[in-house]
C-alpha cells in the first residue's frame, strides 16, 4: 500500500504499471482518475458560471491517516496485491487530475470492487474540501448526498 498527498501531478501510466510490476499474482489492475471537469460551473446567485480553478484544502496530519485506514479496510475485505492512492492539494485548473486510485489483484472482481470502495470512502471520509474560483469570488463545494449513498452501499452489520 502506498498513499500520497501532494500538490504535484502524477504519471498515470507509471503508477498503473507499477501496480503489477514484479508482483507474480497480479492478473487484474483497476484504476480510477478523477479530474476537474473543464466545463465545471459554480452556482452564483440564480445562475451558474464557469470556474477558473479550484483549490483543495486538507487536514495535514489526518489526511494520510484517513486514506491509510480506508485502504486497510479495503485490504481486509478483498485479496489485494497492491494499492496506490494519490490525492492532490492546492490550486487545480479545469482539466487537471485530482485523484488516482489503483488496485491490483489476482482477479478483476476484487480489483474493481476495492477501487470503487476506496473512491466512495475517500469521498465521504477523507478530510479534503474544494473551493471553486468564480468571477464573483470563491465558493465552497457542497457535499453531495449521492456520495453518502454510494459509501453506504458498502456498510456492514458489524
Amino acid at each position, binding site marked *: 500500500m502506498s498513499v500520497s498527498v501532494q500538490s504535484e501531478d502524477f504519471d498515470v501510466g507509471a503508477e498503473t504499471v507499477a501496480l503489477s510490476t514484479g508482483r507474480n499474482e497480479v492478473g487484474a489492475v483497476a484504476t480510477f482518475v478523477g479530474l476537474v471537469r473543464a466545463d465545471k460551473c459554480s452556482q452564483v446567485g440564480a445562475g451558474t458560471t464557469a470556474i477558473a480553478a479550484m483549490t*483543495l484544502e486538507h*487536514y495535514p496530519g*489526518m489526511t494520510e491517516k484517513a486514506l491509510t485506514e480506508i485502504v486497510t479496510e479495503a485490504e481486509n475485505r478483498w485479496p489485494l496485491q497492491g494499492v496506490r492512492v494519490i490525492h492532490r492539494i492546492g490550486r487545480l485548473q479545469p482539466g487537471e487530475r485530482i485523484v488516482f486510485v489503483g488496485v491490483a489483484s489476482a482477479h478483476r472482481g476484487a480489483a474493481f470492487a476495492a477501487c470503487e470502495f476506496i473512491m466512495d470512502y475517500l469521498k465521504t471520509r477523507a478530510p479534503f*474540501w474544494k473551493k471553486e474560483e468564480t468571477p464573483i469570488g470563491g465558493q465552497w463545494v457542497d*457535499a453531495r448526498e449521492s456520495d453518502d449513498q454510494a459509501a453506504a452501499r458498502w456498510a456492514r452489520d458489524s
Partner: protein
Amino acid sequence: MKLELRYFAGLREALDCAGESVDVPASVATVADLRQWLSARGGVWEALTTQKNLRSALDRTMLVLHAEAQSTLHEGAEVAFFPPVTGG
C-alpha cells in the same frame, strides 16, 4: 483541560480562525460538550450548533454526529470541526 482546536474550509473562513489552544472547564467532557461550549461564545461561533451537518474529528479520527456525546476528551486532545468533506 487543555485542547488543540482546528477549523477547516468554510467554517475556518466563517470563524476567521484556523486553530487555537483552549483550556476548557471540567464541565466540558465530550466533543458534544465542546461544541456547545464554543457555540456559547456567541456571534459567528454559534455556527457550531446552528450550521447543518458540521462534522468533527477527535485526535484525527472522524466522528459521526451521534458519536460526539460518547467521545470523551482528554488532556492535549486535538479536536477539529469542519463542513462535510468534498475531496476526490
